[in-house]
């Protein structure tokens, strides 16, 4: 069954189309979908409050695509009822208010793990997918650095 479930892994510098992504991940047995999207924040209050003009995303593309695929596989192992999985990461310059990433999971029912799977997906993407962002704001340019150190083979 899971062999026929669609997986879409996209690293792109083009805009997102949530309705199209949802349609692509919808099977005849699909009754529920959860979509997480990250958005470029212009004003941040948590931590060191600051303003952002735009973000510049950079990826180690071939590895990023492999790791996005791995995140999808990890979701399938943990939530076998999840049907379609789309993971999208935008790269390049992204202005305030722009969606940057999408984790989309479909299933027959809303209690089939779609919420948990989408949450897991974005958490893992931020741990192991080699993508970095530089914030450009009134104080100049600052690379954002993560904190997670993947284990060998992870």
């Amino acid at each position, binding site marked *: 069954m899971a062999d026929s479930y669609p997986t879409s892994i996209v690293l792109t510098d083009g805009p997102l189309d949530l309705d199209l992504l949802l349609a692509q991940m919808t099977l005849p047995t699909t009754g529920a979908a959860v979509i997480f999207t*990250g958005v470029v924040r212009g004003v941040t209050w948590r931590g060191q409050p600051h303003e952002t003009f735009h973000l510049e*995303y*950079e*990826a*180690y593309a*071939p*590895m*990023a695509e*492999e790791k996005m695929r791995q995140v999808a596989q990890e979701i399938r192992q943990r939530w076998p009822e999840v049907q379609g999985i789309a993971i999208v*990461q935008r790269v390049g310059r992204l202005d305030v208010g722009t969606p*940057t*990433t999408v984790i989309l999971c479909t299933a027959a029912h809303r209690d089939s793990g779609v919420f948990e799977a989408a949450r897991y997906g*974005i958490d893992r*993407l*931020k*741990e*192991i*997918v*080699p*993508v*970095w*962002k*530089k914030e450009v704001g009134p104080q100049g340019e600052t*690379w*954002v*650095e*993560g*904190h*997670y*150190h*993947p*284990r*060998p*083979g*992870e």
Partner: protein
Amino acid sequence: MNSTNDLSFSGSEEMNRVRVLFFATLRDDVGQRSLELNLPQNTTLAELEDLLIGRYPRLERMRGLMLAAVNRQYAAPDQVLPKNAEVAFFPPVSGG
């Protein structure tokens, strides 16, 4: 250690040509995106990291903090670099 791209310890061994990639802050520290290096057989990832920090002192601040992938998989410091490996160094990821 010489300053060319031939970082061999000795001239008698067969060499392993590896491609090294840098991303984000590490690319800024090194000043370039990639290098081609001739390394002795059985060079480990940790040895390559030491070589690079020696050559690019600005990398020193990231010693022990940078992540490394060998052929697009996160790798342990003692991993021996396979032939024609693609080795990438980068800071902890911050996508999403």
